Protein backbone atom coordinates (compact mmCIF):
# COMPACT_ATOMS: atom_id res chain seq x y z
CA UNK A 1 0.00 0.00 0.00
CA UNK A 2 1.59 3.25 -1.09
CA UNK A 3 1.49 6.39 1.04
CA UNK A 4 0.21 8.67 -1.72
CA UNK A 5 -2.37 8.17 -4.38
CA UNK A 6 -1.23 9.45 -7.77
CA UNK A 7 -3.56 10.95 -10.39
CA UNK A 8 -3.18 12.69 -13.72
CA UNK A 9 -4.65 16.17 -13.71
CA UNK A 10 -6.26 15.41 -17.08
CA UNK A 11 -5.92 13.33 -20.23
CA UNK A 12 -3.14 15.50 -21.60
CA UNK A 13 -0.92 14.69 -18.64
CA UNK A 14 -1.75 11.00 -19.07
CA UNK A 15 -0.79 11.13 -22.75
CA UNK A 16 2.58 12.68 -21.91
CA UNK A 17 3.25 10.05 -19.23
CA UNK A 18 2.40 7.22 -21.65
CA UNK A 19 4.76 8.65 -24.24
CA UNK A 20 7.62 8.81 -21.75
CA UNK A 21 6.82 5.25 -20.66
CA UNK A 22 7.30 4.04 -24.22
CA UNK A 23 10.74 5.64 -24.30
CA UNK A 24 11.88 4.86 -20.76
CA UNK A 25 9.72 2.36 -18.90
CA UNK A 26 12.22 1.84 -16.08
CA UNK A 27 12.56 5.59 -15.54
CA UNK A 28 8.79 6.02 -15.32
CA UNK A 29 8.48 3.15 -12.86
CA UNK A 30 11.19 4.70 -10.70
CA UNK A 31 9.33 8.01 -10.87
CA UNK A 32 6.05 6.35 -9.84
CA UNK A 33 7.76 4.73 -6.86
CA UNK A 34 9.18 8.08 -5.77
CA UNK A 35 5.87 9.88 -6.14
CA UNK A 36 3.94 7.23 -4.27
CA UNK A 37 6.24 7.23 -1.23
CA UNK A 38 8.30 10.42 -0.90
CA UNK A 39 6.99 13.07 -3.31
CA UNK A 40 7.88 15.99 -1.01
CA UNK A 41 11.45 14.95 -0.29
CA UNK A 42 14.54 15.93 -2.21
CA UNK A 43 15.82 13.10 -4.35
CA UNK A 44 19.35 12.18 -3.20
CA UNK A 45 20.44 11.91 -6.82
CA UNK A 46 19.21 15.42 -7.61
CA UNK A 47 16.24 14.28 -9.71
CA UNK A 48 13.80 16.67 -8.01
CA UNK A 49 13.61 20.47 -7.93
CA UNK A 50 11.05 22.58 -6.12
CA UNK A 51 9.83 25.65 -7.99
CA UNK A 52 10.50 28.79 -5.99
CA UNK A 53 8.58 31.70 -7.44
CA UNK A 54 5.35 32.79 -5.73
CA UNK A 55 3.42 32.04 -8.91
CA UNK A 56 4.68 28.45 -9.19
CA UNK A 57 5.35 27.53 -5.58
CA UNK A 58 4.32 23.97 -4.78
CA UNK A 59 5.22 22.63 -8.21
CA UNK A 60 7.90 19.94 -8.13
CA UNK A 61 9.94 18.75 -11.10
CA UNK A 62 11.09 15.14 -11.37
CA UNK A 63 13.75 14.38 -13.99
CA UNK A 64 12.94 11.00 -15.48
CA UNK A 65 15.91 11.18 -17.85
CA UNK A 66 17.90 13.82 -19.71
CA UNK A 67 14.95 14.87 -21.89
CA UNK A 68 11.80 13.94 -19.99
CA UNK A 69 10.25 15.49 -16.93
CA UNK A 70 7.22 14.98 -14.73
CA UNK A 71 5.81 18.04 -12.97
CA UNK A 72 3.49 17.53 -10.06
CA UNK A 73 1.85 19.11 -7.04
CA UNK A 74 0.90 17.45 -3.77
CA UNK A 75 -2.38 17.80 -1.90
CA UNK A 76 -1.01 17.06 1.57
CA UNK A 77 -4.39 16.80 3.25
CA UNK A 78 -5.58 14.18 0.81
CA UNK A 79 -2.19 12.45 0.37
CA UNK A 80 -2.70 12.98 -3.32
CA UNK A 81 -0.04 13.57 -5.98
CA UNK A 82 -1.37 15.36 -9.04
CA UNK A 83 0.67 15.00 -12.22
CA UNK A 84 0.27 18.33 -13.99
CA UNK A 85 2.46 17.73 -17.00
CA UNK A 86 4.66 14.94 -18.30
CA UNK A 87 6.81 15.17 -21.36
CA UNK A 88 9.97 16.49 -22.93
CA UNK A 89 11.45 19.62 -21.46
CA UNK A 90 13.85 22.08 -23.09
CA UNK A 91 17.24 22.55 -21.43
Amino acid at each position, binding site marked *: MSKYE*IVFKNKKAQKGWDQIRQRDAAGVQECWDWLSETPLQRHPGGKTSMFRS*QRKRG*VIEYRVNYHDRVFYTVDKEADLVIIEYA*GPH*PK
Partner: protein
Amino acid sequence: MLSVFEDQIVQVSDFKKRMKYWLDVVRQTAPVTIAQGGKADLIIMRRADEAIHAKILDYARLVARFLLGRRQGVESQALPWYKHLDAGEQEEFMAELLHCFSDMVQTGDWQEFACLLQDWQATAESNLNPELLAALETPYRPEEYIPVERPVVEV
Protein backbone atom coordinates in the same frame (compact mmCIF):
# COMPACT_ATOMS: atom_id res chain seq x y z
CA MET B 1 31.68 27.02 11.42
CA LEU B 2 35.27 27.16 12.67
CA SER B 3 37.92 29.04 10.77
CA VAL B 4 41.66 29.42 10.84
CA PHE B 5 41.16 32.64 12.80
CA GLU B 6 39.90 30.67 15.80
CA ASP B 7 42.96 28.48 15.95
CA GLN B 8 45.47 27.80 18.67
CA ILE B 9 49.17 28.32 17.98
CA VAL B 10 51.52 25.58 19.09
CA GLN B 11 55.31 25.31 18.88
CA VAL B 12 56.45 22.45 16.69
CA SER B 13 58.38 20.95 19.62
CA ASP B 14 55.23 20.85 21.75
CA PHE B 15 53.29 19.45 18.83
CA LYS B 16 55.81 16.62 18.44
CA LYS B 17 55.71 15.86 22.15
CA ARG B 18 51.93 15.79 22.43
CA MET B 19 50.85 14.94 18.93
CA LYS B 20 47.83 12.87 19.95
CA TYR B 21 46.59 15.66 22.22
CA TRP B 22 46.86 18.30 19.49
CA LEU B 23 45.28 16.11 16.86
CA ASP B 24 42.37 15.54 19.23
CA VAL B 25 42.11 19.32 19.69
CA VAL B 26 41.85 19.71 15.93
CA ARG B 27 39.29 16.95 15.59
CA GLN B 28 37.14 18.11 18.49
CA THR B 29 37.47 21.89 18.59
CA ALA B 30 39.44 24.16 16.30
CA PRO B 31 42.36 24.24 13.85
CA VAL B 32 45.89 24.32 15.21
CA THR B 33 48.67 26.45 13.75
CA ILE B 34 52.22 25.13 13.95
CA ALA B 35 54.93 27.64 14.80
CA GLN B 36 58.53 26.92 13.85
CA GLY B 37 61.53 29.22 13.67
CA GLY B 38 59.50 32.35 14.29
CA LYS B 39 56.98 31.53 11.59
CA ALA B 40 53.45 30.36 12.20
CA ASP B 41 52.51 29.54 8.65
CA LEU B 42 51.24 25.97 8.75
CA ILE B 43 47.83 24.84 9.89
CA ILE B 44 46.23 21.52 10.72
CA MET B 45 42.48 21.49 10.34
CA ARG B 46 39.64 19.08 9.75
CA ARG B 47 39.40 18.07 6.12
CA ALA B 48 35.63 18.48 6.19
CA ASP B 49 35.94 22.09 7.36
CA GLU B 50 38.33 22.87 4.55
CA ALA B 51 35.90 21.31 2.08
CA ILE B 52 33.17 23.63 3.39
CA HIS B 53 35.43 26.65 3.04
CA ALA B 54 36.30 25.69 -0.52
CA LYS B 55 32.65 25.23 -1.42
CA ILE B 56 31.66 28.58 0.08
CA LEU B 57 34.51 30.26 -1.76
CA ASP B 58 33.30 28.74 -5.04
CA TYR B 59 29.80 30.05 -4.43
CA ALA B 60 31.13 33.45 -3.33
CA ARG B 61 33.00 33.73 -6.65
CA LEU B 62 29.85 32.74 -8.51
CA VAL B 63 27.70 35.31 -6.71
CA ALA B 64 30.32 38.02 -7.23
CA ARG B 65 30.51 37.28 -10.97
CA PHE B 66 26.72 37.25 -11.17
CA LEU B 67 26.31 40.57 -9.34
CA LEU B 68 29.09 42.19 -11.33
CA GLY B 69 27.56 41.12 -14.62
CA ARG B 70 24.19 42.37 -13.51
CA ARG B 71 25.63 45.73 -12.51
CA GLN B 72 27.31 46.04 -15.89
CA GLY B 73 24.03 45.17 -17.57
CA VAL B 74 25.46 42.20 -19.46
CA GLU B 75 23.87 38.78 -19.84
CA SER B 76 24.85 36.59 -16.91
CA GLN B 77 27.52 34.01 -17.73
CA ALA B 78 27.59 32.90 -14.10
CA LEU B 79 23.90 31.97 -14.02
CA PRO B 80 22.92 31.74 -17.69
CA TRP B 81 19.35 30.68 -16.88
CA TYR B 82 18.66 33.91 -14.96
CA LYS B 83 17.48 35.65 -18.13
CA HIS B 84 14.57 33.22 -18.45
CA LEU B 85 12.99 34.38 -15.19
CA ASP B 86 10.33 37.06 -15.60
CA ALA B 87 10.79 40.43 -13.93
CA GLY B 88 8.91 39.47 -10.75
CA GLU B 89 10.78 36.19 -10.46
CA GLN B 90 14.12 37.94 -10.93
CA GLU B 91 13.30 40.19 -8.01
CA GLU B 92 12.27 37.22 -5.85
CA PHE B 93 15.41 35.35 -6.84
CA MET B 94 17.69 38.27 -5.93
CA ALA B 95 16.13 38.57 -2.48
CA GLU B 96 16.42 34.84 -1.80
CA LEU B 97 19.93 34.64 -3.24
CA LEU B 98 21.32 37.33 -0.94
CA HIS B 99 19.48 36.02 2.10
CA CYS B 100 20.57 32.42 1.53
CA PHE B 101 24.15 33.45 0.69
CA SER B 102 24.37 35.39 3.94
CA ASP B 103 23.04 32.36 5.86
CA MET B 104 25.56 30.08 4.17
CA VAL B 105 28.48 32.29 5.13
CA GLN B 106 27.25 32.37 8.74
CA THR B 107 26.46 28.70 9.15
CA GLY B 108 28.56 26.91 6.55
CA ASP B 109 25.49 25.10 5.25
CA TRP B 110 26.23 25.32 1.54
CA GLN B 111 23.77 22.57 0.64
CA GLU B 112 20.81 24.88 1.16
CA PHE B 113 22.44 27.35 -1.22
CA ALA B 114 23.01 24.61 -3.79
CA CYS B 115 19.31 23.67 -3.54
CA LEU B 116 18.33 27.31 -4.02
CA LEU B 117 20.30 27.54 -7.27
CA GLN B 118 18.99 24.21 -8.52
CA ASP B 119 15.39 25.14 -7.73
CA TRP B 120 15.58 28.57 -9.32
CA GLN B 121 17.23 27.11 -12.41
CA ALA B 122 14.29 24.71 -12.74
CA THR B 123 11.89 27.61 -12.18
CA ALA B 124 13.61 29.63 -14.91
CA GLU B 125 13.67 26.75 -17.37
CA SER B 126 9.95 26.16 -16.87
CA ASN B 127 9.41 29.46 -18.71
CA LEU B 128 10.89 27.87 -21.84
CA ASN B 129 8.14 25.27 -21.95
CA PRO B 130 4.81 26.82 -23.03
CA GLU B 131 2.98 23.48 -22.73
CA LEU B 132 4.06 23.17 -19.11
CA LEU B 133 3.01 26.73 -18.32
CA ALA B 134 -0.39 26.11 -19.91
CA ALA B 135 -0.77 22.89 -17.89
CA LEU B 136 0.01 24.71 -14.65
CA GLU B 137 -2.60 27.36 -15.48
CA THR B 138 -5.29 24.75 -16.11
CA PRO B 139 -7.81 24.75 -13.25
CA TYR B 140 -8.11 21.67 -11.04
CA ARG B 141 -11.20 19.59 -11.83
CA PRO B 142 -11.21 16.51 -9.60
CA GLU B 143 -13.82 14.89 -11.83
CA GLU B 144 -11.17 14.82 -14.58
CA TYR B 145 -8.50 13.14 -12.44
CA ILE B 146 -7.32 9.77 -13.73
CA PRO B 147 -5.64 7.31 -11.33
CA VAL B 148 -2.07 6.37 -12.23
CA GLU B 149 -1.25 2.68 -11.95
CA ARG B 150 2.29 1.55 -11.21
CA PRO B 151 3.90 0.86 -14.58
CA VAL B 152 5.14 -2.67 -15.09
CA VAL B 153 8.55 -3.05 -16.65
CA GLU B 154 8.98 -6.16 -18.75
CA VAL B 155 12.33 -7.80 -18.14
